[in-house]
């Protein structure tokens, strides 16, 4: 077995000029960041078992140049390596884990000292507050290379940092700062230049007042201040100047200079940034997924103020940021997460090109005449009523007074222009804009409705009104006989007919026809209405969005409603009144549809395609349900069949109120799905592809007049414009870097993987404590996991995942009784670039009030109908209250129906497996915390529900078949201890894993792994009861392999049934096991006659860098070999 790839916590980072060293698991990685795309140059393994927790480079020369024979020091746990930088940077140089050097204790920090000629020297600080120096002379015995110094106070530390006091002549004077497990910060000095080890070393000072463990400590570059951060969620700054220079005794300081409040979880680290005149600056990073920049004024009251928060770093799935490095220029920093992600952030915001968000409050009173001159009526305060953003650099706003204003942002500063003043549009809200391209530039047709049902059309291009002024003042066209409520444009520009734009004009009167307009923009300056139709809305169907598709003379209009419904219209003769062809309700539950867009067309491409050929449209929609969805709309006019299929649904937790969705293609390789909407008070732009927030702005909620547009022209691609009204004022927010990708390395789960399952098609599903389910594929060349989709739908950490045998469905379980079914549409990747992952159904929650009832184990087996069609699955669930539920999952009806239930005892159940015998017996095998494996014969129970096991004619296997009454009409059958045909104590306590080799047949080969460190191998023979329906166990042999691992055995995978020794006649099996001891073992077991189990041996045993291993799964590589995927805190891929 060989480790091939790893995802997991990033534990250390260090810049080398513009480029970056990354400690990722046992490996050191090197990224070049100087080019536009960050590039992984190489990765080299450094340690046998330790993660790289620290990286240090030889200090540069006086003038800041790197020294020619620079060295790199890497440490982790009780190991370190010293390597020549030139060697390391040579891609063909191979590091050797055999070169790792053991240290006498855990290293918390280490620095280079002055070399002894060419021999590097280092100093290290241990977790027991002890400093040792080490001279890297490989010619002498290891212990003699170390020099030990007495500790001023041997206590257990969580953090320590060593500094070379560069202000003292010889730089081997060390200043040590340490954070203890008891909340103390200790400062002490050590002169390592003297040959003689001092008899005693004194503490310089002891800084008290933290209320919890100190996780990070640092000292400012000029040795004036120290900073510490803690479990108590504070940063404390200490004046150390007197303690550095002074020499008498240990000073006890109980009051910090300043305390920084603001982090909302434990703070892992602090660093000083270069001081600004009169200020000390600090950067910190925390478990709350933020980094903060702090500033402390040196004069006056010394308070530590947070000047900038970098929010939601590693937010998709993260729990922790474990590492941070600041670029030498201090313009940016990188963070490494528990989620395996590495991201780069800009510290400086006051530079024009890095300005990410710019906010302006427009002073419209200066632009508009005072209200008293506005004609008749009482003077009222004028306010912005309705916006349309025309790309990212201009927008139009209709004022309540009747003014229409245009705002141009393309130049520095805001440029306002009065478009017109019409009393007829006073207090109007009907305005919309449609985009159309002409010769590569973006044009907008703006439709403005008045109080009498008339509409005015204008064309805008790059912030200029193209429609002549006289036309603007005159050409109001009567559209409806009442005041319009809104105007919606279809976002699709037809290639066949690029000069047409479609819009719908709605009114305030319910159930009155909606006017659909075809606007001719062929002569761009003066748009005209080419055709119009009256669409009859279905019952309770206020329009909120439309999409018009026109092709070969056929026009279809799909409308979305405020109540989550879709309606389809076939548009025929001009001027006609049209009824909907079909209505689909609850597409977005009962919530407003906020956008509709066309993503692709797959009509019949053969030569015989006619006007009647069926068309398949690929659509996306967003809704206030909190989702963006993909749909397939099947249109067959010949037979009048219109079908809508949902193929994907994403509920981004970061954007609970989704307003729109856009997919960007930034280069040949990068496609970003951006979703925008509101979360609480914030307007949020969310990059679903990266799983990161692109930008957010606190606008105090979405219930206000607003509009947003992405940049329309090529040079504005990464821009966005958000305009809104707050307190009757117009706010303009410009976003500049929406498509910025801060990630150097793709993030994965932020917390430990609890369950991992691989489908028959090779899709890897992982479920983690971070409540996320991820789908990935394995790149067989690089062995990297490629993300396909992820969902944060469960509200609790995942307990189990199981694929349907066909790979089309996934079942997931969590705590609080959560069991979901997911339809996985892998084929949609080709059409839309993403794998469809649709939560189809939620299993019913029991009425009993049982909080935190965990569904610990799942299994699913296929069920066919009587005539051989795929009905769905039999899903088994075992739970922490000892209950078992068996449910039918109907794939057509998309629902679970419980058909049997019962309790085992009172102890928690953890595992369930189905087994079908060749003679039609149906068994379930359960196991739990009591160490027993129990076989239940449910053949008879199942037959009362119409479920039986029948041979499949096409093969020699058995499958379940459903006949008889509709399952939903049944009351669930009872599962009772009378159905146990065997309940065998195997382990002393929890059975953490259970695998069976043959899912069918009369012999069951059963493997279990326990918390008691044992593995069991059992052969169980099933036999049909003579004369009655059911099974008895006629033979069972169990071999218990005690102390198979040093700690709990948590994962097993059966590799093969082939004998491992060639030409060997005996039957045998090979399997893999792993556990909390982080070893993966390969076992070979010989099987004899009947139920005999022969010799058992471990044939391979290797260490994996994934702690808390929870699962092992095998994946076929296609060429008859398999790879092993190990899940735990991270994922490791091994070649077998």
């Amino acid at each position, binding site marked *: 077995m060989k480790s091939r790839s790893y995802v997991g916590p990033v534990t250390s980072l260090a810049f080398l000029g513009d480029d970056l060293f990354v400690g990722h698991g046992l490996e050191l990685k090197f990224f070049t960041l100087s080019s536009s795309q960050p590039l992984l140059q190489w990765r080299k393994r450094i340690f046998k078992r330790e993660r790289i927790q620290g990286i240090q480079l030889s200090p540069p020369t006086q003038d800041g140049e790197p020294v020619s024979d620079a060295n790199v020091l890497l440490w982790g746990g009780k190991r370190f390596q010293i390597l020549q930088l030139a060697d390391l940077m040579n891609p063909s140089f191979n590091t050797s884990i055999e070169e790792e050097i053991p*240290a006498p*204790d855990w290293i918390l920090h280490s620095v280079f000292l002055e070399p002894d000629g060419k021999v590097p020297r280092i100093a290290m600080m241990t977790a*027991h507050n002890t400093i040792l120096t080490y001279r890297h002379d490989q010619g002498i015995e290891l212990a003699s290379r170390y020099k*030990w110094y007495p500790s001023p106070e041997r206590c257990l530390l969580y953090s320590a940092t060593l500094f070379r006091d560069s202000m003292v002549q010889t730089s081997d004077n060390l200043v040590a700062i340490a954070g203890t497990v008891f909340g103390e910060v200790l400062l002490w000095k050590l002169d390592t230049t003297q040959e003689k080890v001092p008899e005693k070393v004194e503490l310089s000072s002891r800084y008290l007042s*933290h209320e919890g463990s100190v996780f990070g400590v640092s000292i400012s570059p000029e040795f004036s201040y120290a900073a510490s951060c803690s479990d108590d969620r504070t940063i404390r700054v200490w004046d150390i100047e007197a303690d550095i220079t002074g020499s008498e005794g240990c000073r006890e300081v109980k009051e910090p200079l300043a305390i920084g409040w603001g982090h909302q979880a434990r703070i892992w680290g602090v660093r000083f940034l270069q001081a600004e005149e009169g200020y000390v600056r600090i950067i910190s990073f925390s478990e709350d997924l933020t980094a903060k920049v702090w500033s402390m004024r040196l004069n006056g009251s010394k308070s530590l103020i947070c000047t900038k928060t970098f929010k939601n770093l590693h937010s998709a799935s993260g729990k922790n940021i474990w590492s941070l490095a600041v670029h030498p220029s201090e313009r940016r920093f990188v963070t490494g997460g528990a989620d395996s992600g590495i991201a780069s952030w800009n510290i400086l915001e006051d530079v024009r090109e890095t300005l990410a968000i710019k906010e302006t409050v427009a002073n419209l009173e200066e632009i508009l005449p005072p209200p008293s001159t506005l004609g008749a009526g009482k003077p009222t305060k004028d306010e912005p009523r309705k916006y349309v953003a025309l790309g990212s650099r201009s927008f139009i706003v209709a004022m309540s007074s009747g003014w229409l204003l245009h705002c141009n942002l393309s130049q520095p500063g805001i440029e306002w222009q009065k478009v017109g003043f019409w009393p007829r549009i006073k207090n109007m809200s009907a305005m919309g804009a449609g985009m159309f391209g002409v010769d590569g530039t973006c044009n907008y047709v703006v439709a403005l409705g008045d109080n009498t049902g008339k509409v005015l059309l204008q064309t805008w291009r790059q912030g200029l009104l193209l429609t002549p002024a006289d036309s603007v003042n005159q050409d109001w066209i009567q559209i409806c006989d009442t005041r319009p409520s809104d105007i919606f444009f279809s976002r699709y520009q037809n290639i066949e007919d690029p000069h047409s734009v479609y819009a719908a004009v709605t009114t305030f009167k319910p159930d009155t026809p909606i006017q659909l307009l075809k606007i001719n923009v062929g002569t761009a300056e003066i748009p005209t209405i080419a055709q119009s139709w009256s669409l009859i809305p279905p019952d309770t169907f206020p329009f909120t969005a439309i999409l018009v598709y026109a092709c070969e003379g056929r026009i279809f209009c799909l409308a979305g409603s405020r109540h989550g419904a879709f309606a389809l219209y076939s548009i025929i003769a001009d001027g006609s009144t049209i009824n909907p062809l079909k209505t689909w309700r609850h597409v977005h539950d009962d919530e407003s549809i906020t956008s509709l867009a066309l993503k692709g067309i797959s009509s019949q491409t053969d030569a015989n395609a006619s006007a009647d050929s069926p068309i398949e449209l690929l659509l996306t929609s967003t809704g206030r349900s909190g989702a963006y969805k993909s749909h397939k709309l099947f249109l067959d006019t010949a037979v009048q069949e219109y079908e809508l299929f949902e193929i994907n649904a994403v509920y981004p937790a970061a954007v609970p109120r989704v307003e729109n969705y856009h997919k960007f293609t930034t280069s040949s390789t990068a496609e970003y799905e951006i979703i925008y909407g509101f979360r609480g008070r914030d307007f949020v732009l969310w990059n679903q592809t990266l799983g990161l927030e692109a930008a957010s702005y606190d606008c105090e909620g979405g219930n206000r007049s607003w509009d947003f547009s992405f940049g329309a022209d090529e040079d504005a691609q990464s821009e966005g414009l958000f305009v809104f009204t707050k307190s009757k004022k117009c706010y303009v927010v410009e976003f500049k870097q929406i498509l910025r990708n801060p990630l150097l390395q793709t993030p994965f789960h932020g917390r430990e993987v609890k369950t991992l399952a691989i489908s028959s098609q090779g899709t890897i599903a992982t479920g983690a404590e971070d409540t996320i389910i991820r789908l990935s594929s394995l790149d067989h060349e690089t062995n990297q996991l490629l993300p396909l989709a992820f969902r944060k739908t469960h509200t609790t950490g995942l307990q189990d995942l199981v694929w349907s045998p066909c790979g089309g469905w996934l079942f997931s379980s969590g705590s609080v009784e959560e069991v979901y079914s997911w339809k996985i549409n892998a084929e949609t990747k080709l059409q839309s670039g993403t794998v469809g992952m649709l939560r189809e159904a939620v299993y019913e929650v029991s009425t*009993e009030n049982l909080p935190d009832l965990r569904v610990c184990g799942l299994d699913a087996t296929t069920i066919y109908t009587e005539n051989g069609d795929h009905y769905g699955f039999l899903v088994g669930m075992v739970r922490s209250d000892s209950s078992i539920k068996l449910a039918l999952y109907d794939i057509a009806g998309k629902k679970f129906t419980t058909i049997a239930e019962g309790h085992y005892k009172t102890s928690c159940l953890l595992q369930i497996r189905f087994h079908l015998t060749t003679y039609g017996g149906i068994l379930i095998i359960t196991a739990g915390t009591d160490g027993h494996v129990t076989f239940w014969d449910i053949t008879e129970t199942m037959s009362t529900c119409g479920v039986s096991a029948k041979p499949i004619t096409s093969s020699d296997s058995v499958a379940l078949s459903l006949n008889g009454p509709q399952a939903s009409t049944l009351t669930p059958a009872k599962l009772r201890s009378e159905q146990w045909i065997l309940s065998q104590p195997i382990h002393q306590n929890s059975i953490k894993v259970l695998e069976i080799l043959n899912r069918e047949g009369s012999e069951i080969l059963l493997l279990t792994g326990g*918390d008691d460190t044992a593995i069991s191998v059992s052969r169980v023979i099933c036999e049909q009861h003579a004369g009655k329906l059911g099974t008895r166990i006629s033979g069972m042999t169990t071999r218990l392999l005690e102390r198979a691992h*040093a*700690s709990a055995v948590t994962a097993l995978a059966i590799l093969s049934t082939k004998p491992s020794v060639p030409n060997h006649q005996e039957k045998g099996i090979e399997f893999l096991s792993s556990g909390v001891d982080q070893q993966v073992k390969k076992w070979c077991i010989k099987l004899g006659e009947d139920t005999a189990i022969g010799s058992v041996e471990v044939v391979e045993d290797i260490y994996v860098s994934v702690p808390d291993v929870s699962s092992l799964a095998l994946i076929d590589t296609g060429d008859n070999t398999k790879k092993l995927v190990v899940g735990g805190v991270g994922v490791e891929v091994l070649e077998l």
Partner: protein
Amino acid sequence: MGKSSKDKRDSYYRLAKEQGYRARSAYKLLQLDAQFNLFKDVTRVVDLCAAPGSWSQVLSRSLVAKGKDRDHNVVGSETKEVQEDQSKPKVKIVALDLQPMTPLPGVITLQADITHPSTLPLVLKHLESDSANVDLVVSDGAPDVTGLHDLDEYIQAQLLLAALNLATCVLRPGGNFVAKIFRGRDVAELYCKLRIFFERVTVAKPRSSRGSSIEAFVVCENYTPPEGFQPSLENPIWTGPTRQEDIAGQIAEVSLDDAPNGRWVAPFVACGDLSEWDSDATYQLPDTDENGVKRVSIDPIQPPTAPPYKTAIEMRRKLGNGGKIDKI
């Protein structure tokens, strides 16, 4: 999660409240005792990392008030005067912790650092003894878990080894040592070290300890230090070098963990009867007890220790603004 729902999730939490224990961990020691008969003939016992004191409570109830009505379901039984059994030799229970601990009847509570050399004479003084004659040393200490597994396991191992060092200073030959252990990747190394000092080393998982938790307990029986071993808190073993001459030995130690074959795995025992509560199970509690009285969720005997971030939360509340201290 409210008190009542925690009662259903965690039967030992409920039981601890009902039986007047300060923490659910009391049942871990009770179940270890039931398996290993740890309290037999014990008159001198040291409880390390004792706060909030549930293990000391168990020791006190089992050793001092043995035979008395100790399973009274009365909350606040702490205040009850515990009568000493005159027929038995005087029992001494010394409990140490860095945190202050509410006093317990029959228990000498000391606020002291178990790694500090000055702690040893202090303990001996309170044991009224000038030699190592303790029958049992127990430790349920655990660190603040960060989530970095290797660091957490290292710190926990250091707590265990600190406890072991103190135990070697106070245990009589033949005495026993029980300590919490994280069964992580290097646990076999710890087992090896413990076996040098004890005739029998077993790793035990009480049913009251959750299956999902990495914790277990090492039960080390019959203290038999190697010949010539000099216990000392000045120069403790396996907790980093304290002298130049320690370095060679400590490095050799480190090299041990490369050799999986040289590791020894302690036998495992799950303790506590299967009929006892399962700490992983969710229970349906009847709304009324056997007498038809409506079940009331009772308050914990001691409120949980204030978290270190208590002040930070208060600050947030004070600053208001929906808890947002800063804005972009």
